């Protein structure tokens, strides 16, 4: 047992060294600021959503709390914190109480691997398997939703939770598959043929090495590390669309907000929640929105790249310029995130909601085949062009053209498919009606209230427990 004694003697020393170390301090500062970013981001997004929606809907939005209603969400958070924690009767208490945390934790954990600027990031950011980690975290969310649905002892909540489970699992697949092509692209673009699934590396692939006027300081300042013509959105626009659509479904945003469809399920799995527990769900949802937008910005829109970032953070620059460059990067990155979140809001104000079966059809019959075709096409195209011996640039241009064509083909397929799925979806109803018509003595005769039907009314009324 002597080894144990030695360990027992030094553990506190190790802990002390660990806590007093520079790295740990750095970790704490970055963690607190990123955690703060998640929290404030949700608050800002809620306010932005209300204001932008108000603008699109020809009304004012929050107006009276603080200047231009800017403090409205702050007041809301205060209210939610002070609210009584209400439990419905006969809930599964442990599950009910744990669900918000289970929902929120993966969202916050997702931020661990997001690099915010060349230097600002959590220690997890260099993770070589960043994308896999992010996908794993976003899949975990569904557990919290099911727990909330089950624990609430409410039928609406249960239906909402089950819908959400089906939806999140279905849309996880096209989401992952749409990222596979990006990973394939990185392996093609790199000389040794080894791709990457680290987020920062994928971002670096979108920074071209040459730009107009290279050597001129002004042009260098603008274009070093900022080459929008090399962003993956131009090569794979269809994937951006699919990834973003799946992101909408993953975050339960309109038009995929079935789990909390307020017109059908009251508030879905959130029905029984109030106060801070409800706020945690809300926080998780908006955090999810930020995550999806951040990943889209990273993988398709060049991440934090913008005029001046790479120039100012180049190795030779003075520390002041380095700090400025990092702040600029942070600014560009957050700007891109919020612009993408703006698209979320825009979509929400425009579109009605899909039906549950149409939602599933859209994922399984349209999105997954499209992404699979895209993967095969990307590989085949590369093999073909590689055999012809053309350069990577030509390959990217050809791939881009093909993908843009696929994008318009995708729109055509979707518009055709909605019509077809409508016909399929109503088929059972029509068959039921035909059977009923066959049962009835004469289709034109009005159906008189039968004694059994009166019995149903009584039984139904008594079943209002």
């Amino acid at each position, binding site marked *: 047992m002597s080894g144990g004694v030695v360990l027992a003697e030094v553990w506190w020393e190790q802990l002390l060294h660990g806590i007093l170390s520079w790295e740990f301090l750095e970790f704490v500062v970055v963690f607190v600021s990123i955690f703060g970013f998640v929290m404030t981001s949700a608050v800002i997004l809620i306010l932005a959503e209300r204001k932008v*929606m108000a603008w*699109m*809907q*020809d*009304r004012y939005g929050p107006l009276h709390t603080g200047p231009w209603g800017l403090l409205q969400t702050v007041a809301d958070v205060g209210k939610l914190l002070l609210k009584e924690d209400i439990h419905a009767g006969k809930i599964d208490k442990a599950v009910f109480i744990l669900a918000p945390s289970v929902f929120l934790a993966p969202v916050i954990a997702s931020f661990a691997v997001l690099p915010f600027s060349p230097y600002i990031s959590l220690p997890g950011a260099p993770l070589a398997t960043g994308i896999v980690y992010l996908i794993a975290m976003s899949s975990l969310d569904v557990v919290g939703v099911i727990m909330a649905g089950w624990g609430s002892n409410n*039928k*609406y909540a249960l*239906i909402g939770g089950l819908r959400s489970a089906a939806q999140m699992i279905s849309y996880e697949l096209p989401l992952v598959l749409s990222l596979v092509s990006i990973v394939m692209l990185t392996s093609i673009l790199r000389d040794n043929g080894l791709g990457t699934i680290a987020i920062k590396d994928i971002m670096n692939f979108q920074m071209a090495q040459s730009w107009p006027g290279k050597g001129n300081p002004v042009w260098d300042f603008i274009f070093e590390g900022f080459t929008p013509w090399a962003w993956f959105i131009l090569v794979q626009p269809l994937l951006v669309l699919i990834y973003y659509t799946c992101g909408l479904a993953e975050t339960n945003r309109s*038009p995929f*907000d*079935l789990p909390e*469809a*307020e*017109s*059908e399920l*009251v508030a879905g799995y959130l029905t029984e929640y109030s106060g801070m527990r409800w706020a945690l769900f809300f926080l998780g949802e908006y955090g999810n929105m930020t995550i999806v937008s951040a990943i889209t910005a990273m993988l398709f829109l060049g991440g934090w790249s913008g005029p001046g970032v790479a120039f100012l953070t180049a190795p030779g620059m003075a520390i002041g310029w380095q700090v400025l460059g990092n702040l600029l990067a942070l600014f560009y990155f957050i700007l891109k995130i919020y612009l993408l979140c703006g698209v979320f809001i825009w979509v*929400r*104000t*425009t*579109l*009605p*909601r*899909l*039906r*549950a*079966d*149409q939602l599933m059809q859209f994922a399984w019959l349209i999105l997954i085949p499209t992404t699979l075709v895209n993967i095969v096409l990307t590989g085949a195209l590369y093999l073909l062009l590689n055999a012809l011996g053309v350069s990577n640039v030509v390959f990217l241009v050809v791939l881009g053209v093909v993908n843009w064509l696929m994008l318009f083909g995708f729109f055509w397929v*979707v*518009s055709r498919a*909605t*019509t077809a*799925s*409508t*016909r399929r*979806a*109503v088929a*059972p*109803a029509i*068959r*039921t*009606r035909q*059977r*009923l018509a066959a049962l009835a003595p004469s*289709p*034109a*005769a*009005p*159906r008189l209230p*039968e004694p*059994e*039907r009166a*019995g*149903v*009314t009584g*039984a*139904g*009324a*008594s*079943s*209002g427990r």
Partner: protein
Amino acid sequence: MATNQGVNRPPLEGVAPGELRSEEMILNMGPQHPSTHGVLRLVLTLEGETVVDCTPVIGYLHRGIEKILENRTVMAGIRYMDNADYLSPMLNETAYVGAVEQLMGIEPPRRAQYIRLITNELQRIASHLVAIGTYLLDLGAFTPILWTFRDREGILSLFEALGGSRFNVNYMRVGGVLHDFPKGWLQQCEAWCNQFEKNLQELETLITGNEIFEARTQGVGYVDPQQAIAYGLTGPMLRASGVNWDLRVNRPYMAYREIKVNPQVRQEGDCYARYRVRMQEMAESLRLVRVAMDQLPGGPISTRTPIALRPPRGETYFAIESSKGELGIYFISDGSEYPWRAKIRGPSFVNLQILPELLRGHKMSDVVAILGSLDIVLGEVDR
């Protein structure tokens, strides 16, 4: 289970008798629910997400309007008609005073008839705006309701200028209307019409042709013409099923004898057709308002009627085309100041009867899609 006994439902698809089957869930939708348009309660029997049976439970908004009417003089009863279908008070009042006039044999002056037409058509637009706005809200689109309520606001302001009240206007009188148009009202109305024409186009651009909206509504809640007639459906519900029946055309009353209405009919019979009929009717109503304002005759706005109005002994039935269908008043008078009976034939109540028939076999999400397309007002269902 006791609750499942005697349920008159069709055999489920693909399930042979005696085969193992999962248990159904009974879900109470309402009376407190965001999209039952008031306090309707639907007892849904669900098999998964498929509706097996539905029992509407009504009566949560019963205020005894018909009984109240019996205890008020005829003139005092007009105000209570506002609350029956609270989205179209002008139309309710017109039906009530129309019944009394028919019993008394009064013909209101032409100007009064035109004023009634203008207000009725504006009210129809207002009611359809609410119907479409809330319908799209049921389907998950958040913006249309705010746009439609913005336009409806203009109509309510016009009514406020007329009757002093935005909502329960109390504007119709037996033998005419309460006031003539105030100064500048017609210009205001014209300005509103011009604005609304643009807004309607904008609304159409936002909703019609949206793939998700079409997927949610096309082929959903199909009513065939025979079924529609058998259930006594009226209004947009009937016309969306391809039956050309509009009381303004088929049994014209008041100024509709002079101004011709183009009835809006569609053949599809589904939720989408009902939505389209309402949109087209709004455009048609807008045209009617403009025509009536152009042809507005001069003269008195009311005949001279005694304050203590005593309709002669007898009974009558008078029906108008309300925003939701045939709104009829069955009026029985015993010769006193008070109506002996004033039965309201509310179109919402009649149109609601077909709901269980429509819901069977559809998904749970379609419940709100179908219910919203019926455009019921619980104030009129329960009265």
